[in-house]
Structure formats: structure tokens, C-alpha cells
């Protein structure tokens, strides 16, 4: 009897050790991400005195002073509006351009297809600061500088590789036979797409669109270089927080982080799918 339990213990203990290790790793990784966010939250919701004092409290005071300051700060609302406009435009353009490219990549064989896929990824290899000066010069010449559309163009370029690769994987997940079946049942290429393919990939397209939105929302460098009057929220805060007191920096950071977090959380399922391709 005792021998049996001892044996069972012997086999169970390495397994238990593995589980503890696993749990600890998960905990550490979560803490790595969540602890800074939590401090950001606490400091945002604290009075200026509490932010600058030491030791810190682990419970927020729910002082909305910093946040309401931002709400009433001159230019804040127009910056927010610009951010939404730029991100919205980026979202629409990157899907409008990226989805057809993704469809072509998944459905047609054409010369240089692999090279094309590689080049799409390569567009992310150039650091934006490198391109900033020529871009700024070109934008000033064409009159695109300091406009919402101009900035959205740059952000679309940044979001496009992801839009193409995500939609490529979405389309590849739809068997060709479904489209062919639709053709034999009286559809043209277009109606087969709208009646069969589109309903099936719509959730994925939405996710891809939101991802493009977030990329634009978070982008600060191009926004800071290419706009002066019509700043987006990130560029606006970067400019103003530099010279602000600490509690306002925290609040500004919080305002930037939260929408992006919410969006990413909403589309997390589809981002996993995208990472799946990266592994392939």
C-alpha cells in the first residue's frame, strides 16, 4: 500500500515540478507586461503630490485631476480627432490595397511571387528615420506635409505589409473549391467573392483593419516629423509632455496606451493566426 503511494509520488513529482516551472514562467511573463501598466494606472489616478512622493501606494487614489487636465488642455481634442482620422484612413487604405494583394498571393501563381512576398516583408526593414528626411522634402514639395491624408499615406505604408500577410492567410484558409463550387452554381468571379468568400473572411478582415488602426495610432516618429499644426495625439503628447511635470507624463502615457490595448485585445485571436504564418 505505502509502496504504491511512494511510487505514485515518484512519478508525480517531476510532473509537478514541471507544472510549477510552467506556472512561474507564465506569472513572470504576465508580471513583465502588467506591472508597468499597473504603475501607469496608479500614477495616472493619483494627485500630483502622491506621484512625486515615496513610498508609492499600491492602491490608486482615484484622483481624476491629471486626466481632466488633459481633457481641457488646448489642442488636445483636435489632436485626438486627427489621430482618429489618420488611423481611420490608414485602416481603410491598407485594407483596400492590402486585401486584393493578399487575394492574388493566395489564389494566383505569377512570376516573382516568392520575391514579392519577400519584398513585402523587406519594406519593414528600412528604419523610418532613414526615410524621414526625403519624405519630408517630398511631402513639402507636393503639399502633402502637415495634412491628415499625407500622414495616413505613410502609416498605410507601415500597415500594408501586415494587411497583405494577414489577408493572404485568411484567403488561403478558404478552400478554392468553395469558390469553384460557387462558379458552377451560377456565380461570376465577383459574385462568388461577395457571396461566399467575403462572408467567411469578414471577421478576419475586421481584425486586420483594427490592427492597421492600432499601428497608425501608436506611430509617433512620422507623425512628429511630418505634421506641425495638425498633430496626432502621439506627436502632440510627445511634444508637450517633454516639458510637463511627472504626473502629467503618466496621464499622457495612459491615454495613449489604453485604446491600443483595448483594440489589440479585441483582435487577439486573429493576431495569433498571423503569428502562425510567421512560424511557417
Amino acid at each position, binding site marked *: 500500500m505505502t509502496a504504491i503511494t511512494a511510487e505514485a509520488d515518484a512519478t508525480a513529482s517531476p510532473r509537478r515540478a514541471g507544472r510549477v516551472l510552467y506556472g512561474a514562467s507564465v506569472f513572470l511573463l504576465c508580471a513583465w507586461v502588467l506591472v508597468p501598466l499597473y504603475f501607469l494606472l496608479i500614477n495616472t489616478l493619483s494627485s500630483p503630490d502622491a506621484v512625486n512622493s515615496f513610498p508609492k501606494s499600491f492602491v490608486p487614489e482615484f484622483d481624476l485631476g491629471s486626466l481632466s487636465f488633459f481633457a481641457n488642455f488646448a489642442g488636445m481634442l483636435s489632436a485626438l480627432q486627427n489621430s482618429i482620422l489618420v488611423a481611420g484612413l490608414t485602416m481603410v487604405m491598407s485594407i483596400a490595397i492590402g486585401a486584393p494583394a493578399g487575394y492574388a498571393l493566395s489564389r494566383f501563381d505569377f512570376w516573382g511571387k516568392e520575391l514579392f512576398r519577400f519584398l513585402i516583408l523587406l519594406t519593414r526593414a528600412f528604419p523610418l528615420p532613414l526615410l524621414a528626411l526625403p519624405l519630408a522634402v517630398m511631402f513639402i514639395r507636393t503639399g502633402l506635409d502637415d495634412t491628415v491624408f499625407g500622414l495616413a499615406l505613410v502609416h498605410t505604408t507601415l500597415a500594408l505589409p501586415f494587411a497583405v500577410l494577414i489577408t493572404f492567410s485568411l484567403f488561403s484558409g478558404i*478552400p478554392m*473549391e*468553395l469558390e*469553384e*463550387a*460557387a*462558379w*458552377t*452554381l*451560377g*456565380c*461570376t468571379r465577383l*459574385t462568388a467573392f461577395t457571396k*461566399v468568400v467575403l*462572408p*467567411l473572411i469578414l471577421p478576419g478582415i475586421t481584425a486586420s483593419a483594427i490592427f492597421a488602426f492600432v499601428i497608425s495610432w501608436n506611430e509617433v516618429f512620422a507623425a512628429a516629423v511630418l505634421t506641425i499644426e495638425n498633430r496626432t495625439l502621439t506627436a502632440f503628447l510627445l511634444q508637450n509632455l517633454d516639458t510637463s511635470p511627472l504626473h502629467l507624463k503618466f496621464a499622457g502615457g495612459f491615454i495613449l496606451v489604453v485604446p491600443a490595448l483595448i483594440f489589440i485585445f479585441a483582435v487577439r485571436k486573429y493576431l495569433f493566426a498571423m503569428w502562425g504564418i510567421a512560424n511557417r
Partner: protein
Amino acid sequence: MAEIRIQNVAKRFGDYQALSDINLTIADQEFMVLLGASGCGKTTLLRIVAGLETQTTGEVWIGDRRVDMLPPKDRGIAMVFQNYAVFPHLTVFENIGFGLRMQKLPNDEVTRRVTRTAELMHIEQLLKRYSGELSGGQRQRVAVARALAMEPDVILMDEPLSNLDALLRLEMRAELKGVLAESKTTAIYVTHDQVEAMSLADRISIMHKGRIVQAATPVEVYRNPAERFVAGFIGNPPMNFIPAEQTEPGKWNVAGEIMSGPAAGRALDFAIRPEDLSLAETGLKATARVVEPLGPHLLVTCDVEGALFRAVLESDLTVKAGDVLTLAPNADRVRWFDPDTTKAVA
């Protein structure tokens, strides 16, 4: 009237000749099976008829219309796919009615036709479900119902049963045959399963390396293979071959045994089906190598002058490995093939 005429059709994929010089006429309401190993071009030919693939040269006629440049929707065809291709975002009802909705038929007509074909395929209780909630067999029924509901001139099937398990395949095979006979449509059915082909077909077209080797009734294909390839492909186990030498016109030396055959000016191969052999006093001397009791009969793999030779014998015989058997061929069933051209010689 929907006779299908395929005239001089060829298809190249780059350097690869997938189909060459296909000529085939399929009569109205005929059930034609395209049979062949994978890569022989049978699916490509079906897809050319469907309009999902464009032939490099040649013409396809359905009835009195030339259809080879028309899109699939204008050809009067319906197709059943190997992996069913049931639309996952629609209910079974809307799947079956999909083509009818595309034709903008009135609602009550759609309902009437969907209900009728669903009853025919015994899936009327599944109409509200989605494809994800169906088994493979049920999905295949939906796919067939969807094709039938179109009331097409021609129904095209690409290995529709190959994803089903063995028992279900047997059941669906019998059912398909009945349903299609009743629907009075012309059918082209692609398969690599010779039993399926034999049981379903009015005529079988055996394809090999992009050509049609023989197009004939199942019995004809089995009894009188036009080429050695057919003889070796159809039948399980396939036909036996032994090289023969002519001793005098019409007399052939087959492994030491003199048999009468065609008068030919060159060496021929003697061929016989394993089930057309029986133990006798005189005949071919065969050394048994492997004896496999299969229930209804005994499969004996032997060696005739170094050549592999199989015989299907009665199951109550006691034969052991190493025994020397005397096997007499049924004279009516002996066939001869030219080893150079591989064609049958009468």
C-alpha cells in the same frame, strides 16, 4: 438532350502535357466514369468540361452548344467536389438553394426544389443545420443535393466518395446510382477506384498518362482490355502475362505448353485472368509460393518459369507453398498482347 462531345482536347501545364488528343462522346443520360491512377489527367479533363480549367486546344460541346469558352455558370452543369465544398456560412437549406437563388427563382420554387432534393438524399431533417454540424457523409449528401437541385443537363463528380469511410462509400455508391438514373442527367464521374467505376458506370474511360486508353462498358473493359495497361489495371488481382513463342502459325509455346492463338508474325504475350485458371491434368506448370485463403476462394501466387503468376482457386482445395500445380486456362478467356505496341491482338 445533353450529349457531351470532347473533340481533340489537349492541355499543357508549362512543359507538362497533362492531356493529349482526347476524343470522347458521352451519350445523353449516360453515366460515364473516368478511371485512372492519380496524375493520369482524369480530373483535369473533368475540370475542362466544367470550365474550371481551360484546354490548350480542342473543343467541348454540350448538347448543340460549344461551351469551351463559356464560364462555368453558363454551361448547364453542376459539380460535386471531392471535399464536398459545402458553404460553411450557409445552412443546408441555403446551400442546396444557392444555385436556385443565383437564378433568381421565386421563393416558393426554391423551397419546393430544395425540399424535394433533400428528401431524395434523405437529409430533410438537416435543412436548418450548418456544415460544421454535419458528418462527412451528410456533407456529401448536401453536395449532391445542391448539384441535383440545379436540375442540370450534366452532373460532374470529382471523386465524391473518396473521403468517406468504406462502409459509407458502399452505401452512397448504391444510392448515387439510383438517384442519378432517376434524374436522367448525363453524368461524368471521376474515380481511381475500379470497383466504384465498375459498379456505377454505363461506360468506363480508362485514362493513362493523359490519354484515354479504352472507353467501353465495364464488362468489355474487364474481358477484352484494349491494351496491356488496362489488363494490368482492371481486376484485383490483375491479369497474368507470360511471354510466348510461335511454333507454327496459330500455335504458341507458353511456358512449355502448346496453345492455339492468333497467327502473328512476331512474339506475343499470353494473358489470362487469375480466376480463369483451374487445376487440371494438363496445363501450365506453376510452383506455388504464397497461398492466401480469402474466404470465398484461394489466392495462390506462383512462379511459372520465373514469371509472377496468380491463380484464384476454389477455397476447399489444400494447396501449400512449394506445391507444383498444373493450371489449365479457360480457352475462351485467353487474351494476347503485342509486347511492343502493348495493344491487344485478336
